[in-house]
């Protein structure tokens, strides 16, 4: 299964030439949002950002970085758990440990006696840690979009079946379509096209984006992560713009089915219910998050450990990550960018995460 063609220089040049002429025929520059942080990284890494700009296509990064959009209050709740309780093991994905908050980052704090932080690659690994350490309380700080949510839900399902009593999840589970609705509904929206995420779509399919085409007449295409994938999707968006017929094109059909992954959707549906959620930079968005159903309260760290997670004003002063996430400013417009805030000592989450727009700019655009 060689994907080399999707990186072949000659191929890419051909695609770019075509995109250029299509963009030119629109007679006006077009602003397209890449929703997913992994796309942001790919676009920058392959140097597409500048090449597209020269063709009249402005790519803006969207809110698709789960580490970034999780408000500091939730990061701080995780820190409290492991600093205020003895014999707790906090497990989470690597990026999460580096997010700076008013209490430091998970990586820099000093855990209470017998407590510790462990980085995991998979939610199921946390469960294995719980099985091996019955005398300790394990909390998995689980953050993610639809790509990751089924895995987290499934892990809790297994824990419930095995009646594992020393395991719970501090969850920050985000849904992609609601913030897109918020973005296009805003009066001052300037987004004229969407590059839809590839792996979120592998789970949810095409349908959840239809409203963007039907109600707002904004073109879009689901894309894979090779440069060729991204260019094919952009080409489709330009075609839609030209004809005035917006749709949800699937340019990643080798992975994404129209109806997504029904098994994963069923697991999500069985275990979780929707709630209104507070996003960094985007505020409270109705029905934009998920939480475990009350049947699974024993595995919900918020309930089990009586956490109070409130507010949304916990951003560190000066960090403009909250404006970067909805595409209002580009990272270099932040005064701290590249100075006080850099990958070695990140001051905000958008510089921490591999999917953060500030990090992508820092690495490839300076």
């Amino acid at each position, binding site marked *: *299964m*060689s*994907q080399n*063609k*999707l990186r*072949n220089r*000659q*191929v890419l*040049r*051909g*695609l770019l*030439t*075509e995109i250029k002429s299509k963009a030119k025929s629109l007679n006006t520059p077009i602003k397209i949002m890449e929703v*997913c*942080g*992994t796309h942001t990284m790919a676009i920058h890494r392959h140097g597409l950002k500048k090449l597209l700009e020269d063709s009249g296509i402005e790519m803006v990064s969207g809110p*698709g*970085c*789960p*580490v970034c959009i999780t408000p500091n209050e939730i990061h701080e709740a995780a820190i409290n758990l492991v600093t205020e309780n003895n014999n707790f093991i906090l497990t989470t*994905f690597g*990026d999460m440990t580096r997010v700076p908050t008013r209490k430091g980052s998970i990586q820099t704090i000093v855990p209470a006696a017998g407590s510790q932080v462990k980085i995991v*690659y*998979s*939610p*199921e*690994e946390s469960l294995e840690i719980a099985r091996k350490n019955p005398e300790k309380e394990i909390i998995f700080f689980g*953050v*993610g*979009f639809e*790509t*990751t949510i*089924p*895995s987290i839900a*499934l892990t809790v399902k297994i824990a419930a079946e095995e009646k594992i009593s020393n395991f719970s999840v501090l969850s920050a589970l985000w849904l992609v379509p609601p913030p897109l609705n918020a973005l296009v509904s805003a009066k001052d929206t300037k987004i004229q096209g969407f590059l839809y*995420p*590839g*792996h*979120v779509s*592998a*789970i949810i399919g095409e349908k959840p984006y239809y409203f963007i085409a039907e109600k707002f007449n904004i073109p879009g295409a689901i894309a894979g992560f090779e440069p*060729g*994938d991204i260019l*094919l999707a952009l080409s489709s968006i330009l075609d839609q713009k030209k004809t005035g017929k917006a749709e949800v094109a699937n*340019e990643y*059909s*080798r*992975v*994404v*089915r129209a109806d997504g*992954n*029904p*098994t*994963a959707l069923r*697991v999500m549906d069985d275990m979780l219910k929707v709630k209104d959620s507070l996003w960094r930079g985007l505020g409270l968005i109705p029905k934009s998050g998920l939480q475990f159903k009350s049947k699974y309260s024993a595995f919900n760290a918020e309930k089990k450990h009586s956490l109070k997670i409130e507010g949304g004003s916990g951003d560190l002063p000066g960090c403009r990550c909250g404006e970067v996430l909805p595409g209002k400013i580009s990272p270099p417009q932040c005064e701290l960018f590249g100075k006080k805030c850099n990958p070695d000592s990140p001051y905000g989450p958008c510089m921490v*995460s*591999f*999917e953060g727009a500030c990090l992508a700019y820092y690495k490839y655009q300076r």
Partner: protein
Amino acid sequence: MCLGIPAKVIEVDESKHGKIDYLGTKVKTNFYLLEDVKKGDWVIVHAGFAISKLNEEEAKETMDLIREYIDHPET
């Protein structure tokens, strides 16, 4: 974090646990989220879980489309 890697299934047991081969390394993977999966299939793996099966035919189609640009780069 939505990074997913294409990899080949090398082992899958009845509990839908198994391994993938990723660039020569065997990685423990949970296959529960896939309806039917067998040794030799190509899947996308994210955070230790296989989330989608690669459709080889579709993959080929994309490659063909891409190939057209090689043959006729200016069209």
